[in-house]
């Protein structure tokens, strides 16, 4: 077990009040970056609590790379006040389909006017008065979804559990890589079907165009902090196969300029294009106007920073946000909306993505 030193919190504001919390002592320092386009936290309670230091780093992050180790989490799971429950949880979507379609049409107008090429519009599925054991849920998530960028965060009464498959940024020495994911297909029931689905994804015009748009955006972001001519796309639209899905992943690499620190990198690249859209700030404005509540940590990032300034950060998706006092449980999901898609298809995609997490909680979405 790595011994983390107490965290020092810095509040970092830019553009639309994106709050970046990180600490700067210890061997590995956890990093949490919430996406707060709506200028307020809704699940993270007032983090400042006046003059107190809200983050105590050991409890701050349990990424799968194991700051604490899985045994520790198991122990904490049994020492939690709620033993795991098997209650059926009923989730509501924050939009009705009609509302969703109206917003989809507004987005289509923006797309046709050329304000944006693509936007990642998300909806929230929530349940109230739920009692779960977040540690047990996390263990469950690890076992069932087995994703490389899973993470667990606790702040007081508030928990984040993410089974993220996606890397946001990794820095090793002066090399930085980003691996945006766009384009997902389910696994087949047999080898033949599986192969067919994979081929289908490989050749899907919609997925390829979405992916390339994001790659362009990432290249643009990285070029702000990279040495001249060092931004390279080392893998374009490659399809990888995971336990439950096939995914189209691209890899963009760059060599950092000298004197670039963590703050600069985050400022240039956050929030990630795959969760906002292109061009990024127009897309964020639209998200800000159309989404109903604040995303909280969803589509933010969790990761760690080491003493040499190397770091690895994920994209918080497939995530559960839970307030243990109010019993509010929230799962966000969304999809990239371009001119090539329909409201029905995107609505369905949101449900499929949310469901992958909700089924682990033994939950169902109302009306389905």
């Amino acid at each position, binding site marked *: 077990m790595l011994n983390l030193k*107490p965290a020092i919190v810095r509040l970092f504001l830019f553009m639309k009040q994106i709050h970046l919390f990180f600490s700067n002592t210890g061997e590995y320092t956890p990093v949490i970056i919430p996406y707060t386009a709506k200028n307020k936290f809704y699940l993270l309670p007032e983090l400042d609590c006046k*003059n*107190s230091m*809200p983050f105590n*780093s050991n*409890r701050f992050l349990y990424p799968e790379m194991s700051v604490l180790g899985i045994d520790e989490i198991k122990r904490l799971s049994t*020492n939690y006040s709620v033993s795991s429950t098997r209650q059926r949880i009923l989730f509501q979507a924050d939009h009705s389909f009609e509302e969703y379609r109206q917003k989809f049409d507004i987005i289509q107008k923006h797309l046709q006017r050329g304000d944006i090429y693509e936007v990642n519009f998300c909806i929230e599925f929530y349940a109230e008065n739920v009692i779960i054991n977040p540690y047990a849920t996390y263990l469950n998530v690890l076992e069932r979804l087995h994703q490389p960028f899973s993470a667990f965060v606790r702040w007081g009464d508030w928990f984040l559990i993410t089974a993220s498959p996606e890397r946001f940024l990794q820095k090793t020495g002066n090399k930085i890589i980003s691996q945006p994911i766009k384009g997902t297909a389910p696994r087949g029931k047999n080898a033949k079907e599986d192969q067919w689905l994979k081929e289908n994804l490989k050749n899907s015009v919609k997925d390829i165009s979405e992916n390339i748009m994001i790659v362009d955006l990432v290249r643009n972001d990285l070029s702000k902090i990279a040495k001249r001519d060092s931004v390279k796309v080392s893998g374009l639209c490659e399809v990888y196969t995971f336990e439950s899905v096939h995914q189209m992943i691209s890899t963009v690499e760059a060599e950092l300029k000298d004197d670039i620190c963590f703050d600069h990198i985050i400022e240039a690249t956050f929030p990630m294009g795959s969760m906002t859209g292109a061009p990024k700030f127009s897309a964020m404005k639209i998200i800000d106007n159309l989404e109903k509540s604040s995303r909280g940590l969803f589509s933010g990032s969790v990761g760690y920073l080491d003493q040499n300034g190397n770091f690895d950060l994920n994209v918080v998706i497939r995530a559960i946000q839970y307030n*243990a006092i109010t019993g509010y449980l929230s799962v966000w999901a969304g999809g990239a909306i371009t001119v090539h898609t329909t409201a029905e298809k995107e609505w369905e995609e949101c449900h499929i993505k949310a469901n992958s997490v909700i089924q682990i909680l033994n939950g169902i979405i109302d009306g389905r």
Partner: protein
Amino acid sequence: MESLTADKFKSILDRWLPGYLEKRFLLAVSGGVDSMVLLELMRQVLPHDRIYVAHVNYGLRGKDSDLDEKLVRNTASQHHLFALFKKVDLKKMAENNQKGIQELAREIRYQWFEEIRQHHQCDFIVTGHHFQDNAETILLNLLRGSGLKGIMGMQILDQQRRLFRPLLQVRKQEILAFAERNKLEWREDKSNQENYYQRNFLRNQIAPLLEKINPKWQEHVNQTAMVAGEYFSFTHEVFQYVLTDGKIMKKDGMEIVDKALIREMNHPALFFYHWLNPYGIRWDQIQYLLEKGMYSTETRNLTLNNKKQLVIDRKHFILTESQTLNEKIFLQLDIRASGEISKPFKLRWEIIDIKEFDFNFDKDPRVAYIDYGKLEKSILIRHWQPGDSFIPLGMKGRKKLSDFFIDQKLNEEEKKNTWIFLSENNIFWVAGYRIDQRFRVNPLQTQRIIKFYLLE
């Protein structure tokens, strides 16, 4: 000597708080042996997510204070307990304050604990006070001139203040023995060994002498406290009965007592004490009520804590909620001409033509200069409401008033008492702090200036 164990601790919890496993506790941990033992015991009997740890660093002892904090941090971390820390520059705060440094520290501490207790919906604030502490408290209360309640000392369970002191009947030696058996780490408060504070003087100088008179003085003082407690609850019960006997009239949430009835009483002081004790009346205030209040012909006002006030008019004593009065106040002020008001606070305003103005701005924050032309002729004055925002002078963007107050380091009470001036729903002055950028005096445009003074 009975020894302190997790099982014994469980039985204490069971006795005072049946169902304690369902509750949340905010532990006040200083890093001293009492609170570290408390933390260890709580940790052994409760799930980790039910325990919240809070520590205040007053910075009074420099590096030592930081080491205390570090110990609490590390221990909380080690057991995965959620911990909150607050740093206060107590010396600096004490300079601008009448109160003694210890009293101020206590005030800050409990105010903050209560804040986080509510925030995290904890049921109780738990402290490590023990047997010896209680004996000392009682003696000190006695020297300070306290009533029966002071002689009672501390309570294990104080429902009203949401305080729980499970170690109050536990001897210091048991606590030390537990700490050693469990190989706990703790920090000795160096200032305890100096005779700087009253309590320490009592502990280090007087207690050994008392020991000579009676080695069991602590037991006896605690015993007296128990007896006093019994009498207190008895008289309180009796008093409830007497009270319901038509002395207090209840009307619209107010409690009214006729002065004539009090004149007939044999023990008016006790009457006041039991009536107003829940609202924190002190004996010196009771004395004031009996000597001055009873015979005053003009209306007087006595502020009690718990948001209550006692209004004394010619014929009655009236207990009302001072806070709700405040919160509901919406004041419409006609500012077509210069004038002044004295209620609910003293305010004077003057309208000045720009030609007569010498541009000598008074720097006092209680004075505001506003562009008269930008104001409605009837302005609104009220207290802060959630969601209020304005553009503080010198800034470009809007700022939430709640954030502004935090920047100004106002406490809850000050926040609530601040007056906000509005014209057409726009805040133009946060009285006593800052005016709004949009309403400032602009020498090129402004024709008339309105100058507000906050008096007192």
